[in-house]
């Protein structure tokens, strides 16, 4: 290869990298702008760490915190959900008696993808990337449905039917939405993400290996 060809190759490579980085930056910046202009921050906290200390602190919140959204959600799902939102927790946020009938504002697909790009940048160091293998496994199923009774509060698919409780988020298609690594981190260090919540603390009840297996099972539900 002669010198001019190497030069051409380098130039086109640099241009490609520049275009990719530049357009991604625009998308991220736009997403942040859309998040601000739509006033999403009035319901969703984007600054960590979690500050709630009392039931009252939690009850004052209007929606789930998003300061670790990039560690929690799968990007493709986030982009789709923001354009076409549906209830994730079947009961209204913070309620144990009322059905969730709230219409979350919908964004255009372009805006949704841009906000997703932005939210994916909000990560938490407590989520160990690559710790969990997302796979349906009989041990995880047994823990979820029997050993630890998760199904009491979380719905899940059982054959063609959906079964389970409604006070926790619906996990029947959790694998489209949640990263297994985050589910594991949430079980392992719940107070980092939600210091005040209705789910029991399972630290030192479910051991570390089981947490990973259970998280992998949850993140494989599609």
């Amino acid at each position, binding site marked *: 290869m002669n010198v001019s060809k190497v030069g051409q190759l380098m130039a086109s490579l640099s241009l490609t990298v520049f275009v990719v980085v530049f357009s991604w930056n625009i998308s991220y910046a736009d997403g942040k702008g859309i998040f601000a202009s739509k006033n999403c921050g009035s319901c969703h906290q984007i600054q960590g760490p979690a500050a709630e*200390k*009392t*039931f009252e602190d939690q009850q004052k919140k209007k929606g789930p915190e998003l300061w670790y959204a990039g560690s929690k959600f799968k990007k493709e799902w986030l982009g789709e959900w923001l354009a076409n939102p549906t209830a994730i927790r*079947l*009961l209204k946020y913070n309620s*144990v*008696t*009322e*059905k969730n009938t709230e219409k979350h504002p919908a964004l255009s697909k372009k805006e949704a993808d841009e906000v997703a790009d932005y939210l994916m940048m909000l990560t938490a160091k407590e989520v160990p990337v690559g710790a969990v293998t997302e796979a349906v496994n009989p041990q995880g199923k047994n823990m979820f449905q*029997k*050993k*630890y*009774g998760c*199904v*009491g*509060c979380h*719905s899940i698919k059982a054959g063609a*039917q*959906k*079964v*389970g*409780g*409604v*006070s926790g988020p619906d996990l029947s298609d959790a694998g489209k939405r949640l990263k297994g690594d985050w589910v594991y981190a949430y079980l392992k260090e719940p107070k980092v993400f939600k210091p005040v919540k*209705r789910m*029991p*603390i*399972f*630290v*030192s*009840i479910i051991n570390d290996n089981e947490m990973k297996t259970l998280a992998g099972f949850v993140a494989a539900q599609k």
Partner: protein
Amino acid sequence: MIMIRKMFLIAVFSVGILAFTGKGTAFAVSAEENYKFYCTQCHGMDGKGEGANAKPKVVGIDLPEMSVTPRNHTSPEDMNKLTDIDIENAISGGGAAVSKSTIMPPWGKTLTEAEIKDLTAYLRKLCKCKGK
């Protein structure tokens, strides 16, 4: 100077006690508040065992009823079968600890022992019964 040293020792001692008792809710709440926040999910706001998880259709959600019936805390017949220790064990270790359904999860890492004792006393008020 001695006064300052005394105050310092008291401060260190207090922090030590707080650190030692730091398990469970880090703020003072009544048994009723704990009941309303945690237990009502399955046992219902009135304690009759008909919370949203037990009977989703009652709140307008089309899912089948829970496979087991949560204990009716207002029933003296049911609650009289249990000693206070049975109740404390059920709250702390979940259904598995008292040979009942594991759908009742363990709350022993969420609530302090004192809070569990207070909740037990609260359940006795709900059933208006003393137990075995």
